[in-house]
């Protein structure tokens, strides 16, 4: 028999007992204290410091790789003709997809009144921002000399009097991703305002008080302010919902609008959006499981959250599986010999093993999530989330590389091999992501304090 924080016993084995979204027995002060005390302490956990140092070290791989890239140009990468798009686009699509789960959790689940989203939305939104930052790096650095390339990416009056080509999906992508980054930042910051106000009034250190004081902008919790705040938050959620769906749709158009077999398919937008949410939820699980352990947040991020996220993964994973099946069907049913060759080559060509490995990671293994035993086994769930992360990266690799490396003429066939600079850049962005994430959980509340308060029974007004 387990006991609650207020020492009341609770029978967790009672039939029909479903883990609540917040462990019972908390009051307003305890919710604030539990989340704020992670930040407002001078004792830095050794584990936090250790992981931060490692992440920072890995981030320096990125610095080295990008530095050398700027000296030498994109020739240091494995790209060449016919594979002109390599790791840069693979990693871009992977990272931007990961970001999508954050917006889904904060916006779409808010509109659907899924109150379980409350304890995971803050760090999922942070994950979105940092993933978009990592993603955004690739289109910039893949130009080799980004300071010379700005004029065809961004519309600004320049001395050459030329403007970006707005009929190109690549420019749509620039607008979609930068809009997504800005709106995600606004959404995240808006959610933070009442929480940093709580930290401001709680902090003892004058520097911390000043820092949170500036960020909170003088928020005081007035009912008139809350009224407009809730309106703004709901409208932002409503705006972010079509936005997040549009972003990966536009990303998929980078491929689908071209006439390359394996890319030119109408299934791409929904299939990419589902894949994005799939990989994003995998990443949320990858982050949430160790964090709730390390910071003792199991009362707020309960097994119910993990179970629900596993179900979302299973659902979106099935849509992705349908996408793979449709692609294969298109290849055959099109009766186009280039299309049919492409799908055969994808499955049984030189990169065939990668295709089957991605099927294993994205379709076969996640089927175990049908079983409640698997969904409630936290270490296994963690492993599955890692498997899906790998699988989704492989998916993008297979889509990009196998469609390009067999050109229409056999004389133009080639192979793509990433170089050590490609790998350093890719791993480096993981270091950047982790560095930003660990800084975030050290200085800002990783769980939305004021939204957690609304889950308490004390917050229900009876009249």
């Amino acid at each position, binding site marked *: 028999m387990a006991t609650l924080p207020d020492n009341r016993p609770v029978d967790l084995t009672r039939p029909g007992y479903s883990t609540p979204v917040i462990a019972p027995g908390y009051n307003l002060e305890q919710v604030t204290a539990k989340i704020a005390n992670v930040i407002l302490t001078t004792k830095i956990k050794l584990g936090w410091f250790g992981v931060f140092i490692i992440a920072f070290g890995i981030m320096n791989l990125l610095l080295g790789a990008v530095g050398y890239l700027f000296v030498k140009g994109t020739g240091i990468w494995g790209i060449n003709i016919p594979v002109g798009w390599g790791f840069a686009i693979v990693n871009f699509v992977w990272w931007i997809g990961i970001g999508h789960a954050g917006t889904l959790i904060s916006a779409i689940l808010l509109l659907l009144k899924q109150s379980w989203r409350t304890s995971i939305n803050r760090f999922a939104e942070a994950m979105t921002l940092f993933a978009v930052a990592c993603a955004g790096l690739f289109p910039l650095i893949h130009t080799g000399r980004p300071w010379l390339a700005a004029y065809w990416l961004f519309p600004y009056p320049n001395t050459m009097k030329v403007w970006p080509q707005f009929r190109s999906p690549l420019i749509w992508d620039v607008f979609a991703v930068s809009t997504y980054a800005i709106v995600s930042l606004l959404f995240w910051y808006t959610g933070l305002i009442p929480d940093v106000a709580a930290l401001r009034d709680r902090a003892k250190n004058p520097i911390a008080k000043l820092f949170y004081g500036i960020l909170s902008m003088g928020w005081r919790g007035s009912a008139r302010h809350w009224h407009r705040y809730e309106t703004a938050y709901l409208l932002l959620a409503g705006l972010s919902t079509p936005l997040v769906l549009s972003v990966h749709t536009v990303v998929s158009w980078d491929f689908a609008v071209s006439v390359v077999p394996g890319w030119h398919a109408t299934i791409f937008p929904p299939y990419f959006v589902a894949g994005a949410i799939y990989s994003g939820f995998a990443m949320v699980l990858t982050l949430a499981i160790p964090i709730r352990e390390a910071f003792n947040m199991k009362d707020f991020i309960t097994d119910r959250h993990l179970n629900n996220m596993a179900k979302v993964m299973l659902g979106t994973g099935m849509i992705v599986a349908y996408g793979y099946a449709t692609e294969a069907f298109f290849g055959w049913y099109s009766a186009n010999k280039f299309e049919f060759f492409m799908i055969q080559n994808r499955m049984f060509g030189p990169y065939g093993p990668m295709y089957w490995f991605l099927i294993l990671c994205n379709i076969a293994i996640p089927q175990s999530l049908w079983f409640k035993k698997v969904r409630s086994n936290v270490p296994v769930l963690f492993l599955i989330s890692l498997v899906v992360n790998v699988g989704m990266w492989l998916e993008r690799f297979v889509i990009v590389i196998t469609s390009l490396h067999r050109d229409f003429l056999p004389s133009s066939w080639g192979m793509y091999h990433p170089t050590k600079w490609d790998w350093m850049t890719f791993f480096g962005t993981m270091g950047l992501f982790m560095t930003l994430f660990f800084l975030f959980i050290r200085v800002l509340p990783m769980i939305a304090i*004021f939204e957690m308060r609304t889950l308490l029974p004390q917050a229900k*007004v009876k009249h």
Partner: protein
Amino acid sequence: MKPVGIHGVMAEFNTADELVAAGRRAYAEGYRRMDAYSPFPIEALDEAIGIPHTILPWIVFAGGILGGAAGYGLEYWTQVIAYPLVIGGKPLHSWPNFIPIWFETTVLGASIAAVVGMLALNGLPQPYHPVFNIQNFVDHGQNDRFYLLIEAKDPKFKSAEAQSFMTSLNAAGVWEVPN
């Protein structure tokens, strides 16, 4: 410069329920210039102390229209007037290709209007506000207590009367808030 006068009278309550009930009573008593403070949004307060519906949605709508017009205008002007370039035999004003960016700038304009509009209507950022002169509010206002404030600007406001009225509502504490 030393501030003069008082901002109003503030009462502390232990629960959200008590705050909403107190707000109703104060409204019935005829007070109109009131504000309530809580560590989380309480929808029932809007009606209890008579908060009018915000015009924010209209600002967001205007922001969206403006963003969309700017986005489409940029596309039209650059592709048709400033830098006409025929690509793939498409007409210069190939509007279907302009839709994605028009959509993105619409969302961008509306989102920025939502956040900036909300902050502007709330008068934020605001470096100083009298309610923070009450130490109890600083300690508990963003955490676990609920406050009702009758402003001195209320035509019916008399400090002593307001204080005794607040005390009659079973408030946990009543203070005069200096400006």
